[in-house]
């Protein structure tokens, strides 16, 4: 049987066959006129209080003709809908919406009384701003889309729901501004989402793999944010946003590498300050990636790289170290990575103890025991801090730093230069959704450079980024 029939017991049996799980319950109730309704619902995710209030109590006094239309009118649920297909009704039950069936009717009524588990909206720990909004996305797609809708009081904002995941049937909200986002990009996003054949989507990060043109690449190709203000700003520039049910991380495409050097705060402080901090982030990242590598290459292959006095200091510190410079640096880097990994996963109350162990026991004692030198610890510490200046790129940059270190230890400075060349070439040839990753630097787009590493004031940014090829070019009249 595919559809609801007039025979209630048979319909309920067919529905139960589709939903054999123990937590799918049915109950019956009678109206004052003696009409019997059967409700099928998923126990853990249905709001029973709401069901009682909006459905059962409303229908107790129902005395009209028992048609779906009449029953629907009595149910006080705005999300009520009628459905004939048993499969679709089963899907609604699994989504938390109870299904109402009664004798003599060949369609069911879906009452939108699912239970929504949400935590309070709070500031995301990964994207803290001193100035600016403090709201962050949570795990509920409805709440998240409401945070977006609140910021765009225009009908141009389109929020299209797409289901992804064969078993999880996760809702993904595709958000874009009609007439501002490139239509081809919107279509491509929907096509890519439609082609995903995956069991479940536990988090938004699962989708990034399917949305990337080079899915096995180390390089990030989809933008991520936990803040609705950033998300909306990106949509307003002409990007397409994705909010995934169950994930506080929203995705945006097309993604430009420069996005991760920009912070929401840059737009709330004077432009010269924003330019300075962006340059500082870039500098910190370059130093974080290259400093350990150049230190090792300098020691092993070209001592001239160090000023004489510094060279003497280094020579004094490494005199009794039993390891080669590259092995020593790798060791310290490994300790840093382990400490970093452990401190993230460790319960908070142990975290303090871990810092003490990391800083004092491992650092201080290792130096005094002669395992590692002080300059190595200073360099790795600085590199470790520098990496966090651009937190969204940590996964990529920490691998790059390790690669640089390995090359520096084996080939020296020329190896570092060549790896840089490799990375540059790879980056300039990476495109996603028709947008080059390294724009506006390569291809160079002069106007877009005004909001790149440099930040001009708002008056100088009257148009949307050309890179995104938005059909609606002006944002400032």
């Amino acid at each position, binding site marked *: 049987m595919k559809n609801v029939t007039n025979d209630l017991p048979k319909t309920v049996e067919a529905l139960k066959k589709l939903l054999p799980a123990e937590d799918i319950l049915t109950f019956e109730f009678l109206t004052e006129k003696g009409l019997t309704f059967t409700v099928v619902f998923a126990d853990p995710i249905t709001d029973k209080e709401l069901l009682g209030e909006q459905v059962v109590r409303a229908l107790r006094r129902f005395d009209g003709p028992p048609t779906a239309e009449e029953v629907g009118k009595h149910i006080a649920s705005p999300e009520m809908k009628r459905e004939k297909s048993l499969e679709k009704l089963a899907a609604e039950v699994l989504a938390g919406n109870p299904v109402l069936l009664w004798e003599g009717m060949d369609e069911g009524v879906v009452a939108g009384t699912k239970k929504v588990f949400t935590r309070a909206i709070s500031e995301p720990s990964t994207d803290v701003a001193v100035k600016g909004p403090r709201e962050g996305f949570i795990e509920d797609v409805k709440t998240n889309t409401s945070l977006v809708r609140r910021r765009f009081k225009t009908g141009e904002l389109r929020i299209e729901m797409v289901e992804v995941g064969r078993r999880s049937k996760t809702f993904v909200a595709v958000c874009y501004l009609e007439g501002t986002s490139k239509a081809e990009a919107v279509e491509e996003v929907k096509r890519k989402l439609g082609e995903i054949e995956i069991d479940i989507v536990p988090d938004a990060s699962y989708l990034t793999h399917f949305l990337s043109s080079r899915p096995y690449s180390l390089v990030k190709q989809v933008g991520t944010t936990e803040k609705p203000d950033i998300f909306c700003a990106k949509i307003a520039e002409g990007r397409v946003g994705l909010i995934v049910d169950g994930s506080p991380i929203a995705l945006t495409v097309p993604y430009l590498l420069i996005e991760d050097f920009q912070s929401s705060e840059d737009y709330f402080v004077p432009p010269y300050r924003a330019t300075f901090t962006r340059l500082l982030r870039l500098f910190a990242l370059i130093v974080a990636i290259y400093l350990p590598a150049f230190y090792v290459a300098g020691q092993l*292959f*070209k*001592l*001239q*790289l*160090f*000023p*004489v006095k*510094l060279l003497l200091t280094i020579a004094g510190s490494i005199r009794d170290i039993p390891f080669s410079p590259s092995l020593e640096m790798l060791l310290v880097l490994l300790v840093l990575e382990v400490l970093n990994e452990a401190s993230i996963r460790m319960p908070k109350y142990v975290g303090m103890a871990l810092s003490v162990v990391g800083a004092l026991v491992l650092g201080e004692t290792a130096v005094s025991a002669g395992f590692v030198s002080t300059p190595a610890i200073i360099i790795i510490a600085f590199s470790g801090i520098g990496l966090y200046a651009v937190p969204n790129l940590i996964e990529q940059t920490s691998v790059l730093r390790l690669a640089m270190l390995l*090359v520096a230890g*084996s*080939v*020296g*400075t*020329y*190896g*570092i*230069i*060549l790896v*840089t*060349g*490799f990375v*540059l*070439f790879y980056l*300039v*040839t990476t495109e996603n959704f028709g947008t*080059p990753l*390294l724009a506006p*630097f*390569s*291809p*160079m787009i002069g106007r877009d450079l005004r909001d790149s590493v440099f930040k001009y004031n708002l008056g100088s940014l009257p148009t949307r980024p050309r890179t995104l090829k938005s059909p609606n070019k002006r944002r400032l009249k």
Partner: protein
Amino acid sequence: MNKISSRQLYFFLACVAPVGKLVYLPSLLVSSAKNDLLFPAALQYLVQAGAIFCVLLLAKRGMNFFELLENTFGRIAASILIGIFSLFLFYSALLPLLEQKLFVQSAFYDTLPSLVAFSPFFLFAVYLCAKPLSSMGRVWDIIAPLAIAGYIGIMLLSVGTADFGALRPVGAAGGSGFWKGTMSAMSWFFDAALLLPLLGKFQYKKGMAAKGALAYLLGGAAVIFFLATFYGIFAELSQNQLFAFTKTSKYFAGITVLGRIDYLFIFTLALVMAFYCALPIQAGIDCIVQAAGPKKYLRPALGIVLCALYFALTDLLDYRFTEVVRAISGTVVWIFPVFCLLVPVLCLLLRRRRREIS
């Protein structure tokens, strides 16, 4: 990958191409033209700018190099001609590669490094060769500012220590010195030939030929200023300063306190040079691909074979660099003007209208 834009092309001509002329060429010019080293370089730049003007005019026809040849000579003859031209490009790549290898060994290592030190370059070159030549346009967008930064950094640290009076008296080397200098420099000027395989990968825009030639001359002016500074610092000792741009800045007063900060700029220029040195190989491979048509593994396969060959050659000729320079810039130096000057000019005579090819 999109087409190369006119801006990217100008970046290449003005910023990337000059970097290859800052390593061995300055000392070579001094050895033949003495304090008149600027004039042979200037002449080379003027002549080469003319050839570049011709090549960029060819872009008006909207055909790639192979199509241009095929349009006039037919498929078979065009394949042979482009094959010969790609052989020239592979030949022209040898000197910059040897030069770069010695530069790397000298500048980046305190002691003579093992074979391993330069070999990663060939991996890098294989990677570049496997990609379409048109993707280089975006690379030029990135490395041109780096080249400018590197050049300005080196010059800021060098100019203060230069005595430009050393360039006088003008004309002291005489006509023979000027001629010898011009001939020896010839094998470093093949930029017009590098542009021929790029035809069809960029769209001609109004005034592009003149702007391209001008961009090249702008780069030339920077090289000539560097040559003057170089001679101003080392005077008659210049001919012994083989890797010029690593040497000029080392007398900067701040270096004793800060260390070799000039290496920051040297690294930057070395990165630009790595891309520049691989370009003739990429261009040669692209010529073959133009004739053979797009085949999936042709580019990487040719890249691997050629880079393996260059790896062996650079290793074999490691200690014979002077002899190689003498041979390439001496006995067979005519090859360069033929392919870099004559071919671009002759190409202007190729059939203009597209012929129906069955």
